[in-house]
Structures are given as structure tokens and as C-alpha cells.
């Protein structure tokens, strides 16, 4: 088996992997290798032909494909080696990866540091326990997006969408543009997980009804999907008998959540957070395994790619420093999620902080006119009043270095109503 040594190995060539690779190179790492299992770099952005990307990072509105291209060009210009059609199939805690490609077969890569940037997968039908036959015509929204935008194929003509995540909303508009009829977008919760902009511009603009507090209770058809039963649900999210109605359709798109793809992380011994589904990291994005860093959607599912790029650049820089011999173990001072706060990243901080620290989290519910508060050792170190906080939009909290101080005292973040 061929063997090679690199300074920083980045697993995944999507927005996180590209930004991490560029940052590692810019931080002085001589050999940076990004591996991606697909034929081209760019990750999910390759199929995101809609606009709205880059407002934070570039101050202009780009499509996903345009945003990806900027990073691809930058990666090549910086001298990052990007190996496509190459899948990492094993990773040890000692930072030895096994990668495989058609062109070079099996290879062993010994890395000074590793950045995990594998992204996430869509929650599939099997995770929903919806009854009905296993007929053709049921797709995850992202898979349908790939078929339409990259393969030039249409999954069907009469469409129902289950879940109102942003990918589902975006696909409602895309399918409408491509000549399909979208009958409804069905959402279990009493509120949508998608951005208001997408509800207005992807559903309302085309008269597509959003059925809140509803779900699909039956999937009908033998060979091909023939229709679904939709029913209202009560406060416990259980379907209410007698409210079923039939929608004849040939396509059901599922937009019901994203799951960080951490199989490799676990193989390497990385500890995962039950709250985020991603690695537990410190402010340098280092995991419990020394020299292994994590960023992007494999760390926690983001709403905006701009924040992925920013986070990944920090991971890439820290990885380059580790590879150069500046080895520090992951910080152990806990960052605690208080009232109203869901999965928070990073979960740990070092005792000594080098600069300001950015915390990101999702709230557990909808809060209006609430305060985001961070405390340490009985001291309030951050406080900001927000008009509205919703679980669908990640909250960013930047703790100033001076306010944060140092020591072993945990940091606690909470929502104060």
C-alpha cells in the first residue's frame, strides 16, 4: 500500500474543507491535502444554484455554486492539493488515515494534524417510521435537488413536501420552476424551521400551502407513489383521527433534518456531543483526540455557509499550528448550556485564551425580547438583548478576551426572558 506524509489532512472538500485547507496553507503548512469522495470539490454548494450566499463573507449575494467557485479558485491558487474521487475510509487516533481512489487505489496518509469536514447527511425516510409501502417516488429534498440541478432529471410532476426546512422550501420553488405542481408543504411543528424569506419567496409567491401541525400518516402506491394521507396533529404531535385527507401525488420530498456524518470521527475516538451530534471541541476546534480538529456541518449543522467558512478557517489555522509542533491538548474548562440554550459550540475552553471567543448555539424555543447572557464565576461577561430568537437561526456570541479572563471557572450561557 502506498504511503505518504502530509502536514494537514482535511477530510471533505466542501465549504468547510476548502476554507480549512486554505487557512492551513496560509498559516504556513507546506503540504495540505484535501480529500473528497465526489468528482469535484464544493460539497453541497455544487447543487445549491439558488442565491443568498456570501452576504456575510463577501458583502454580496451569490449563488451556492458561485460561492464554492471562489473558494475552489483560492484553494488552487494557495497550492492546496485537492484529491477528488477519493474517500477516507479509516482514521486512527494517531492521525493515520486510509484513503481510497480509483486512480491510486488504497493509500495510507500520515498527517501532522487532521481537520474533519465531512458535512452532514439528510435524515432519511427510515428515521420517520411513516407507514406505507416502499414505492419509488420518495426522496430526501437534497437528493431531489441533486437530481434536478446536477443530473438534469426530474423526480416527478405532482409533489408533496414533508418538513419545512430550508432545503424543502427551496425545492418547492425549484420544482415549480421546472414545471411540477407542488401541492403542499407539510410541517409537524406549529412553526416552520425555515427562514421567513424562503416561506414567502418559495411557497407564498406560488400559492403553495404550508400546513403547520400536520404530518404524512400514510404513503400509498406499490411500484410508484400514488398518494399520501395528511393529518393534523395535536399538542403531543400525535395525528388526530378523522382529520386525514388524501393528496394524489407521484413524489414525496423529505426535508426533515440533517445529521452530522461522524462515522470516521468515532473510528478515531473523537467524543461526540449528544446535543449537536458533532464532536466536542474547544475554542481552537480541537476534538478530544489531540491534533484532530472539526468544523462545518460535521461539527454542528449551520444555517449560513458564511459562518462555516469562518469557523473552518479557524480550524485550519489551528491544525497548521499543531502540525508545526505547537501541540496543546484540548481545553477542559466547560462551556455550559443554561436555560433555553441547546447544543453549544465550543463545549470547552482553554484556561488561557489567546483572543476573543465565538460561541454558537441554537435556542430551545422561540423567545421574543429576551436577553442572551453569559456568566463566569458569578460575573456577567456578556449580555445582549434580542428582538427574537428562534431555533432555526443559530445565535452567535462573541466573548471578549478581557471580559472572559482566565482560569478553571466554567462559562455558562442562558436566555433570560
Amino acid at each position: 500500500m502506498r504511503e505518504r506524509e502530509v502536514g494537514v489532512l482535511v477530510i471533505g472538500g466542501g465549504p468547510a474543507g476548502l476554507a480549512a485547507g486554505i487557512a492551513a496553507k496560509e498559516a504556513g503548512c507546506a503540504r495540505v491535502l484535501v480529500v473528497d469522495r465526489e468528482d469535484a470539490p464544493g460539497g453541497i454548494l455544487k447543487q445549491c444554484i439558488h442565491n443568498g450566499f456570501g452576504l456575510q463573507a463577501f458583502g454580496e449575494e451569490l449563488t451556492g455554486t458561485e460561492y464554492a467557485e471562489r473558494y475552489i479558485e483560492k484553494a488552487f491558487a494557495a497550492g492546496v492539493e485537492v484529491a477528488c474521487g477519493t474517500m477516507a475510509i479509516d482514521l486512527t487516533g494517531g492521525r493515520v488515515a486510509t484513503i481510497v481512489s480509483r486512480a491510486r487505489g488504497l493509500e495510507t496518509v500520515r498527517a501532522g494534524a487532521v481537520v474533519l469536514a465531512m458535512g452532514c447527511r439528510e435524515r432519511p425516510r427510515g428515521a420517520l417510521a411513516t407507514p406505507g409501502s416502499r414505492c419509488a417516488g420518495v426522496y430526501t429534498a437534497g437528493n431531489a435537488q441533486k437530481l434536478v440541478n446536477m443530473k438534469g432529471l426530474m423526480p416527478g410532476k405532482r409533489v408533496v413536501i414533508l418538513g419545512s426546512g430550508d432545503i424543502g422550501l427551496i425545492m418547492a420553488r425549484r420544482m415549480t420552476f421546472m414545471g411540477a405542481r407542488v401541492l403542499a408543504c407539510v410541517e409537524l411543528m406549529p412553526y416552520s424551521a425555515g427562514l421567513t424569506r424562503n416561506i414567502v419567496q418559495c411557497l407564498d409567491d406560488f400559492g403553495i400551502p404550508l400546513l403547520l401541525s400536520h404530518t404524512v400518516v400514510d404513503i400509498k402506491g406499490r411500484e410508484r407513489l400514488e398518494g399520501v394521507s395528511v393529518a393534523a396533529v395535536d399538542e403531543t404531535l400525535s395525528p388526530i383521527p378523522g382529520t386525514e385527507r388524501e393528496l394524489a401525488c407521484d413524489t414525496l420530498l423529505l426535508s426533515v433534518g440533517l445529521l452530522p456524518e461522524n462515522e470516521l470521527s468515532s473510528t478515531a475516538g473523537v467524543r461526540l456531543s449528544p446535543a449537536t451530534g458533532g464532536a466536542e471541541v474547544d475554542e481552537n476546534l480541537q476534538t478530544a483526540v489531540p491534533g484532530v480538529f472539526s468544523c462545518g456541518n460535521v461539527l454542528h449543522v449551520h444555517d449560513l455557509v458564511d459562518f462555516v467558512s469562518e469557523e473552518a478557517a479557524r480550524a485550519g489555522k489551528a491544525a497548521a499550528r499543531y502540525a508545526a509542533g505547537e501541540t496543546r491538548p484540548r481545553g477542559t474548562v466547560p462551556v455550559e448550556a443554561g436555560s433555553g440554550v441547546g447544543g453549544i459550540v465550543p463545549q470547552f475552553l482553554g484556561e488561557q485564551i489567546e483572543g476573543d471567543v465565538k460561541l454558537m448555539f441554537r435556542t430551545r424555543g422561540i423567545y421574543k425580547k429576551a436577553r442572551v447572557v453569559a456568566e463566569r464565576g458569578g460575573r456577567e461577561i456578556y449580555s445582549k438583548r434580542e428582538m427574537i430568537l428562534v431555533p432555526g437561526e443559530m445565535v452567535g456570541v462573541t466573548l471578549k478576551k478581557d471580559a472572559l479572563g482566565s482560569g478553571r471557572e466554567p462559562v455558562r450561557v442562558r436566555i433570560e426572558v
Partner: protein
Amino acid sequence: MEERELICINCPMGCRMKATLEGGTITSVTGFTCKRGETYAREELTRPVRMVTALVRVKGRAQPLPVKTDRPIDKDLIFDALAALGHVTVQPPIRIGEVVLANVCGTCANFVATANVR
């Protein structure tokens, strides 16, 4: 007098606004929390526009080329613009920003490529 309901898209508040129009002129807007809401409502009621992203056939390839309008176009023209694009087949190579269909439906907007094809 005509009454219209709108949801503001500027932030997750999603303020539900009500506007009254008299002979096409906006006489009142209520329900917004901040200035951005009112501005959005007035623009949306006067002349709603949208950026359109779409796909176009590429000669000899299964994979279509993604394109966008280089400025927002009237919302009412979206489907006409898509129909016009349906008659276009582009020839590789194509660079990002290249005009694929100029002056879409007389709007002065162009459909431009948003990906490279080698």
C-alpha cells in the same frame, strides 16, 4: 379601498403587516416593528421584484448549467423569463458571469452563468 396582508422577510420576527391601498396608492401600512418592515411592504406593494435562478441546457451534456438574473426582475415575469430560457442551449466552455440570455423579456436583466463548464 383594497386591503393587503404581508409577512416581512427581513428577520425571523416575520412581522405580519396590513396595508390599505386606494386606487393603487398606499394609504397605510401597519404591523411592522421596525423601519425595514415598512420599507419592504411599500416596495412589495409598489413593484415586487425577485432574483431568478434557473437551469439551462448544455449542448452534449446531461448536467445543466445554473444561471441567475444579474438583477431582480418583476415577480410577474418569472415564468415568462423561465419559458424564454427554455429555448436556449449553451455551448461549452462557459465561464461564470457569461451572459446566457440577454435582456430577458425586455427587462434589461440578463441571465448569466453561475458555474464554469470546461
